[in-house]
């Protein structure tokens, strides 16, 4: 029988290799945390003093070269945008998710729907923006307006809401549905009274994720909502026979215009701080919701 020969040099080489490789992996893991902290820290370092001032947050922009005003209108238009987009996307998205989890038969149409959702999720926002420009702004004559922007953004977040709601609905135990149906309750009543309440935290997570996407969106809004800075924003106005849409700037778009003009770049950091704080808050809420959610279903 052949004896196993241990080659000391070889073992040493393998061990060194292992140390270097694992060290590299360790380094890359922590590098990402460092990069994140550095970027956020950099924005905060330059932006925090301005962002924390009452004047900056609550006075309207003056639109001048150095723009000594604040971001009140941008905050308002961002809120309008979130409201408009979620009001459209959430009912449609949740209903679509209900169809896919509770109703959909295994057929070609269901496959087509799945295909569409998956592809919508992969379309870059600039393509959504071009669509919003062609369809809402030009074809439906909404002009550059928050409404056109909100509707386009609603389509963009639709796949996010559908996918997360679907997951939430799938995680509702089958026995809950069966107990309800066994009591003679019909399908819709079961969904409305049993399935949806149980899936609510998961669905809420999806909506919060979408809000994060909406807040950070800029390409779509430049193409579909325009960039008017000093007008008081509105989603729909009562001026016209039916409505007169208005162009408006959200926080992210405002940041873009501030940053690309050298005279206002300092202000861009403050707007960035506001954006990051909102994103941090959303992330924190999502974590808290999914924590309590997990506790409920595992116990």
């Amino acid at each position, binding site marked *: 029988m052949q004896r196993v020969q241990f080659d000391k040099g070889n073992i040493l080489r393998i061990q060194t290799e292992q140390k270097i490789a694992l060290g590299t992996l360790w380094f890359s893991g922590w590098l990402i945390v460092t990069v994140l902290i550095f970027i956020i820290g950099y924005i905060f370092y330059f932006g925090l003093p301005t962002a924390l001032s009452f004047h900056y947050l609550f006075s309207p922009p003056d639109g001048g070269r150095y723009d000594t005003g604040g971001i009140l209108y941008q905050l308002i238009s961002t809120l309008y945008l979130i409201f408009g987009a979620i009001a459209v996307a959430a009912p449609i998205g949740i209903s*679509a998710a209900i169809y896919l989890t509770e109703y959909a038969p295994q057929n070609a149409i269901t496959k087509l729907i799945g295909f569409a959702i998956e592809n919508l999720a992969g379309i870059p926002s600039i393509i959504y923006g071009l669509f919003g420009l062609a369809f809402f702004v030009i074809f439906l004559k909404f002009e550059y307006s928050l409404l056109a922007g909100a509707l386009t953004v609603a389509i963009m977040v639709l796949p996010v809401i559908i996918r997360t709601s679907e997951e939430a609905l799938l995680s509702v135990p089958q026995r809950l549905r069966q107990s309800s149906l066994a009591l003679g309750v019909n399908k819709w009543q079961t969904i409305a009274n049993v399935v949806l309440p149980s899936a609510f935290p998961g669905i809420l997570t999806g909506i919060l994720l979408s809000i994060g996407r909406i807040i950070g969106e800029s390409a779509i809004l430049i193409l579909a909502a325009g960039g008017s800075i000093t007008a008081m924003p509105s989603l729909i106005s009562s001026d016209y026979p039916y409505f007169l849409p208005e162009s408006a700037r959200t926080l992210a778009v405002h940041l873009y215009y501030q940053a690309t003009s050298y005279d206002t770049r300092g202000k861009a950091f403050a707007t960035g701080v506001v954006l990051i704080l909102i994103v941090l808050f959303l992330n924190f809420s999502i974590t808290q919701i999914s924590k309590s959610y997990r506790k409920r279903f595992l116990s």
Partner: protein
Amino acid sequence: MQKYFIQKEKRFWTNLVNNLMGQVFFLSAFIAVLSLFLITAYVFYNGIQVFKVVSLKDFIFGFEWEPVTRKLFGIFPMIITSFYVTIGALMLSAPLGIACAVFLAEIAPLSAQQIIRPAVQLLAGIPSVIFGLFGLSFIVPLIQTFAEVAGLSILAAIIILSVMILPTIISISEDAIRAVPKELKESSIALGTTKWQTIYGAILPASSSGLMTAITLSLGRAFGEAMAVKMVIGNTQTMPDFSPDTLFGLLSLARTLTTNIIGDIEYAEPGPHLQSLFATGAILFIFIIFTNAIYYLFLKKAYGVRRAQ
């Protein structure tokens, strides 16, 4: 015993609502199909109009973009730059992202995971304009101090993009690595291999289709990113200078397909100029469809990961 009376009228209404809601749910789901169809139709229809003014060949292979003054619509430099920037960003972030995913899935203790994973999530949630601002105010001046150039450059775009696509690569790769069967890892360890040899020889090959999925999906994301790139690339419409003086184009100003749309939309008049921007979008869209097709044809079956959000 009490008799149960079923109110016929009430049952009629509950049944009606029940049936109606089923239809409503179906229609809502079908809106996704309708949206995809409308988006494709509108972008391509508006884009095709420009070919009344310029031939497809001159559009794709033309070197000059002078839409207003000379009616020249050549986007070849932008196509090249888009590929250059995308591939550059992937070359930086694919190794780093996969390494981070391996670290998270195989090595990191729970406490480290609890810090790194939220950090990756947060990175995914940061708006692209903030990356643009960071690039513009930190990376660009940094490049300026090392080389006698404008700073706005392909290199700056590559660096910013590579950070932006990291979360996509990490989360999909991590899922793929975690999906490797335990038996495979244990048999490898049982043969007396080290941890690294197991990772390199067993885990990475076993999860390769998942890793390819991660790279393909982030490729689409990098190719389609507009705002952050626009802020740091300078947006000049000429072909980037690929001479060694500019580190083979890295330090050269340029324009990608996406930044062409964002940059020109501010002054494009309805007519050929606006249509040419739709056509630029259509070319971009074709590339996105192409990466999606790769994912569908080769990767989805092998590795059925849910599309990254």
